[in-house]
């Protein structure tokens, strides 16, 4: 019951100051430093460093925003459970369909359209040396995409 009383807010009144005092500017400064790290790290062009500085740092930044700015760690347990359930559902869906999307062939099947698409992509950019099983994120010279070939005009019907 006390939770209910605490949750009630009258319109126009200041909301309850339920969060501990936080130095928000300091958190913002840390986030900015992390941003610089995530930009400079991948410039070293070392795959492990790129993964850690780009994606690892993104997770840390997201954690800081969620806990310090959104005050998720001071929210009632139902909220993190609710959001966690959604994330779990997403993870389940991705885990279930990823073999079909990421692999282009299996024991008794072959995704010829996807294979053709990769082959076409490689042929358009002969400077890039990728094999299909190589992980994404290899470095290649910036090249604009080739314009899409126009569909052959259909003869006019009279």
């Amino acid at each position: 019951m006390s939770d209910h009383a605490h949750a009630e807010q009258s319109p126009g009144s200041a909301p309850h100051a339920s969060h501990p005092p936080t130095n928000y500017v300091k958190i913002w400064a840390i986030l900015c430093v992390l941003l610089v790290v995530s930009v400079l790290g991948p410039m070293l062009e070392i795959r492990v460093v790129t993964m850690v500085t780009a994606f690892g740092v993104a997770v840390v930044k997201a954690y800081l925003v969620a806990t310090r700015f959104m005050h998720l760690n001071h929210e009632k347990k139902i909220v993190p459970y609710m959001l966690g359930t959604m994330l779990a559902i997403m993870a389940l869906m991705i885990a279930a369909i990823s073999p079909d999307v990421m692999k282009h062939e299996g024991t008794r099947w072959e995704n010829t359209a996807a294979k053709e698409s990769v082959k076409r992509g490689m042929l358009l950019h002969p400077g890039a040396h990728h094999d299909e099983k190589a992980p994404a994120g290899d470095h290649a010279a910036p090249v604009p995409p080739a314009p899409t070939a126009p569909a052959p005009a259909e003869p006019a019907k009279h």
Partner: protein
Amino acid sequence: MIRPIATTRSATGVPTGRLAVWWVIASEIVIFGGLLGGYVMHRLGHPDWANQAANTNTWAGAFNTFVLLTSSLAAVLGHQAAEKGDGKKAANFLYLTCLGGLVFLIVKSIEWTTEIQHGMTITSNTFWSFYYTAAGLHGLHVIAGMVIMLFVAADAKKNKELQRVENIGIYWHFVDLVWIFLFPLLYIAK
């Protein structure tokens, strides 16, 4: 005067208005999670996309990340002011947050114009389809947040409905959070 249910009732201990925002975010997790998860899976299956990703402007993406982080700071400072009962200050911080959103959209539109002029359109490659869809959907969320924030700020200025300052702030931080993941996925992984 009849008080709205969002401010007077709570079955969970969380004010109903704020709980509603958390539910919005829960549904957004599925929307953006599905989109980004789909992108990651396709990206890992198509190493040739690295050639397309090489064309995105890392510096523009980094600048926009900085802008959104700064706007999030303004939003949380607005919340802090609202907690102290200073509606005018809270409104001013919300206006600053909106300004951040506007700068973000201007940079994004310049970026998109350049890319489209160079032939990188939504139909030129599946990478660009994902790029424009994900960044476009995120941009729409920025616009929605800005519009709502202007309404909340107008009330807050008169010291009315100050609890809404936190609610719109939570939404805005989530929009920032989505961009934190979009940035490395679309601009850094090359």
